[in-house]
């Protein structure tokens, strides 16, 4: 049974990590909480539903289209809304409120176009899971865990090895100094949104396949993703992924001992503990 709990925790953690990594990447450079990231994921899932289930486009092509569309969409949000606000010297609190407004607006738009009922993407036939060390896991769930880990590695390489990654780290560390040496912070913000939203697109695809689609799914996802990001250290992408897995483990092992209705409570108690005693999270950078 212990093994099953570990597997369940890994699956839950990987789903939270898919949400938290993009969210945390955007936070690290742009320094504001982009709650609408949750609906960007929802948009990813619904876009796949539109292309694959409604228009009948080939599944793999639909996946590519979804990731491209969602990263474009993230870029569009940044360019048309956040950038304009930054130009007007909006504080990060204003941007936070804007992101809330966008979250609700996009949810309503999805509701308007697709209706409120739950949708399913019938690509993978549900079957009995594979048994590994006495625990059961489905192929899709393995893909979810592997994808989360691959994204972690790719993001790490991106940040360490590429020019844009280095620029991102510079802006994340100190925007003004970065600009002095000739890095355009706006360009970095755009790239953060493009990459962060592409991850959201991948997350939307996998979460859409694993769970069903609902217009409001993004809110629940971003709450868990946000919690994972805080635990791991807000602004640190590897931290966000680590925090998400930790959250998955805490929830799944927690309900083993506690009555199951307390699952969400476990997440928030951990969030409070970290906010009170370790506000920088596990891998977050301490600032004086």
């Amino acid at each position, binding site marked *: *049974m212990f093994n*099953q*709990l570990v597997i*369940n925790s890994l*699956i*839950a953690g990987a*789903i939270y990590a898919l949400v938290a990594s993009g969210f945390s990447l955007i936070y690290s450079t742009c320094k504001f909480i982009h709650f609408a990231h949750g609906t960007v994921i929802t948009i990813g899932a619904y876009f796949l539903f539109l292309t694959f289930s409604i228009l009948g486009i080939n599944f793999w092509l639909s996946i590519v289209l979804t990731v491209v569309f969602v990263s474009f969409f993230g870029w569009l949000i940044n360019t048309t809304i956040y950038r304009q606000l930054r130009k007007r010297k909006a504080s990060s609190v204003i941007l936070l409120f804007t992101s809330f407004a966008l979250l609700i607006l996009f949810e309503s738009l999805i*509701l308007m176009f697709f*209706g*409120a*009922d*739950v949708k*399913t993407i019938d690509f993978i036939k*549900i*079957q*009995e*899971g594979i*048994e590994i060390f006495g625990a*059961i896991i*489905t192929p899709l*769930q393995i893909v979810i865990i592997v994808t989360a880990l691959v994204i972690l590695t790719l993001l790490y390489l991106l940040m360490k090895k590429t020019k844009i990654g280095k620029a991102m780290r510079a802006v994340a560390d100190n925007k003004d100094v970065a600009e002095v040496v000739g890095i355009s912070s706006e360009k970095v913000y755009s790239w953060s949104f493009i990459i962060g939203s592409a991850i959201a697109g991948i997350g939307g695809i996998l979460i859409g396949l694993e*769970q*069903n689609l*609902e*217009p*409001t*799914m993004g809110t*629940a996802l971003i709450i868990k993703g946000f919690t994972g990001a805080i635990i791991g250290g807000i602004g640190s992408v590897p931290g966000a992924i680590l925090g998400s897995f930790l959250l998955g483990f805490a*929830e*799944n092992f927690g*309900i*083993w001992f506690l*009555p*199951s*209705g307390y*699952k*969400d409570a476990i997440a928030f108690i951990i969030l409070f503990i970290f906010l009170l005693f370790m506000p920088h999270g596990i891998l977050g950078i301490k600032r004086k």
Partner: protein
Amino acid sequence: MKRSSKIIWIIVIVIIIAIAVSTWIIYANQNLKQSSSIASIKIGAILPLTGQMSRYGELEKSGLQTALEKINNNGGINGKKLEVIFEDSTSQAKGAISSWSKILLEKDINLIIATISNTCQALSPIANNDKIVLMSSDCAVASYSSPNDYTFRILSSNKKEGEQMAELLINKGIKTISIMKINNDYGEGLVKYFSEAYENMGGIIKNTESYNSDEKDFKGLLSKIKNSSPQAIYLISYAPDAEIILKQIKELNINFPLFAAEPFANNTLIKNAAQYAEGTIYLRSTISENGKTFMEEYKQKNGVNPEIGTARTYDALNVITVALKICEQKNNLTSNCIKDELYKIKDYNGTIGKIGFDINGDVDIPYVVQTVKDGQFVPYNN
């Protein structure tokens, strides 16, 4: 430049406000004229048109619309047109309460129809406080109604469902069970009555696992159930959750027989998850022999068979019409008159069976045992 642009902005805003106000005045006047020229009787309906329960809301709205059309084609309420003001509860109690206040902004509202247990339950004390008749087509929570109050329903309370399920399980020789339930009034109530009855009959409840309405990952709870090895699982969930739970049961290779509560019987569930629902046994109320004409007419018009939710709201509006007609004739269209007349209804032939209200405003509609066979809801024969 700055000053002039400010002035332009002020002018634009003033114009927008002026247009909005004048449109509102014209619209309000028109409404006033309409309501004074055509005599009509208005009632409210609070349905879950968006949110998690929206699939039920759509069915219920369709039932009300079908009944409304028929009533008005047959002369309305003694010649007066019947109107239903639809409001969306967003599947939540707080949404239902704000819809309630919104409907009451209209003049002369004496009766409101509401559906889905968690919203009706929240509206029940408000209805009694405001002295407005509340008719629910599917509120199953036992504490929803009390003697001689303003609340009515045309679904048997979940006390009956719980007891009947306990009996069914014991009769089938199932002595140990695990319960998976939604964490709301409906789930709590049903578990309470079921557990009492089941344990009195000698059954053992291995564990009761609850989940919140936005939960999507049930693997932890299901693993817990699997580990406790019950003889069967009793699933108390609305259809959207049940679909995901069924899939995860399959994925985790859990093979205990499944029993389910009434909301399980939903055609969309069959569309989305028929293969995982196969063999599940559940209790539900059904459309009776009386409802045959309704079924045929509905199918002819809409191309699909009506679901039980549709039939129930259809009946709800028709039953209400009986009371409204009497009160209108007495020239006493008040909530008190409607309430008294509804209590007098003892054997109305509804599509779901004989509708007669007891002292609590409850009905006694039987639950029948059904199962899923070859992707269809069919009667269950041992």
